[in-house]
């Protein structure tokens, strides 16, 4: 099912799930490559070609591959359901996380600059990532992955406008 907006909190573009599935598959392949490499190394290093290890190393490779893949694929839907952002006239808030949850709030006048980026897969899916930078170190950057092109443009336009949003005083 597609998550619905809850009040002002909007979900990400549904296509982002496809992107995350690709990323999960890539991560799994990465794990497998690492495992096979280690396996090979251990076999080379052991004298008689037999690995003294409680489990054959190959199981770690295969297991790791499967675990990363299955977990990645299973959690994609959940991750998408839990990812929300809220753009109000004078601030931006995001909340995300399945097990470890995070809520972050950034005031619009604090924003230094906004980046819109897209990797090759994301581009093919029509997705953009919006990164919002405020003063301070790297930890202060807010990144929203998986927005449609139009939505990312709307966000960028709204966020980099420098005048106060309305005639009324911003509420505390």
């Amino acid at each position, binding site marked *: 099912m597609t998550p619905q907006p809850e009040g002002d909190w909007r979900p990400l573009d549904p296509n982002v799930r496809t992107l995350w599935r690709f990323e999960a598959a890539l991560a799994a392949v990465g794990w497998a490559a690492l495992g096979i490499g280690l396996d090979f190394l251990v076999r080379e290093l052991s004298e008689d070609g037999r690995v003294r290890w409680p489990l054959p190393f190959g199981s770690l490779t295969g297991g790791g591959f499967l675990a990363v893949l299955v977990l990645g694929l299973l959690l994609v839907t959940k991750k998408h359901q839990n990812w929300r952002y809220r753009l109000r006239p004078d601030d931006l808030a995001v909340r995300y996380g399945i*097990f470890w949850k995070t809520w972050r709030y950034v005031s619009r006048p604090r924003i230094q600059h906004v980046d819109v980026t897209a990797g090759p897969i994301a581009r093919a899916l029509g997705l953009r990532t919006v990164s919002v930078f405020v003063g301070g*170190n790297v930890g202060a950057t807010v990144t929203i992955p998986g927005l449609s092109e139009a939505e990312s443009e709307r966000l960028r336009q709204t966020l980099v406008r420098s005048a106060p949003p309305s005639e009324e005083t911003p509420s505390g």
Partner: protein
Amino acid sequence: VGEPQFRRLHPGTIGIEIVRVLGRFVWFVVILVILSLSGQRGDSGEFFFEAAGAIVVVVALVRYWTTRYAVHDQKLIVRSGLLVKNERTIPLDRIQNINFSRNLLHRVLGLVDVQIETASGAGAEANLSALGEAEAQRLRAELTGAQPEFSSTEPVWQRQDSLYRAGFKELLLAGATGNRALFILASVVGFAVLLPSVVGQLRGRVVSQLDALPGPVWMAFAGAGAALFFVGWIVSIVTTIIGYWDFEVRLRDGRLQRTYGLLNHVENFVPIRRVQVLLVSQNVLQRLLRVCTARIETAGAYAASDGNERGPQTSSPVLSPMTDWDGAQAVIREVVAGSAPGSEAWTPISPKTVVRGVRSALLWAVLASAGGWFWLGPRGLAFGVGLLVLAWLAGLLRKATCAFSDSSEVFVSRRGAFSRHTSYVPVAKVQSVALAQSPVQRRLALADLRLTTAGSSLTGVHIEVPDLAFDVASGLADSLHGRSLEAAWANPDGF
């Protein structure tokens, strides 16, 4: 408005630059000298030496000839570069702070290194090395005169402006109790552990000689370690006293002036409204002696260093190297408007932090027990149990020490059972607010509150209050966010 009038650096720059480059390659130079003296490489060594020397001189000359600067139309313009021309423009109202430093050579030649910082990036945005003393003062007046909170005339510092002055006793304490001594101790211990095996492998003879010494070998090593530690301790005290010699902070017309240093004299200016965070820290020794160190963070990264040529370091500018609590309170009250040090209404974190700590450690305890069982049999379970006990104790300490205090203008957080750190954050300086919740915290309805400011702490420390009741944390997050937003609209450029 007219054309910008570009000015040159002081000709003494050439000398300074040569010495600086030589200093940077001091080991290379030493090796070259040894090579040429040893005669093994003979001519080629000498050739290298001369070539390197020539390059250094040429580089210094080029730097002097190509660097020009001007203050024009509310901007500082710095041009440099021979092949790749570089022109940097810094709007004067973006300048975060101005740093003057002089090492021994500068002082002999009457020169000043001027570093100018904005809120971006690492390191000083403009480094004018070196200017004559009078020119440096003039430039500073031009740069700061444009800032609205300053009058255009340089204040005449008066006796009553002094906010804090470090006496010899304070510096002695700072050197004697600073972390450097502990660091040296740790490295000596590590060295002493490594040494026997290294010595044993390299020179059996030495070990046999050591065996002939009265008393066991480890006593000799312990003695040597203690002696090394003592030497390190003395070095730490001496370097601190020399580095912070005659430390004084003055405050007038909204600007802080810090001056210190015996050999390398530093004069640093920070507009007080640029202060992002004030940190008060005490290690265990310092808590016993009831003294503390106060630091400030500004948005300029170079200010994070204590203003010498080695570039950005991991510590924030020191406001008072060492002071008793009364002295610190006076400084905090002046520098962070609206703070009430010593009479804060502290709110402790949730008592559930103890349970949270134990439950978070549960998975690790199970793993440690399994590992222990695998290696040692049933006795190995002690690893897991020990881990849980440690987590429980840590939780008790956390519950007793972590607290926050929120007045309308200033948010204060306190943490650390052994080393104590207290952060004073003007709410107007808050850049972002976040809540974080782990699975264990979710079940206990707890959350961590995190604040970031534009303070360029290279140590990456943000202000964090752990294990608050979720309602308290989210209420606090909303309130802080709302108040900082109001301040941000009132002063959109504000760092």
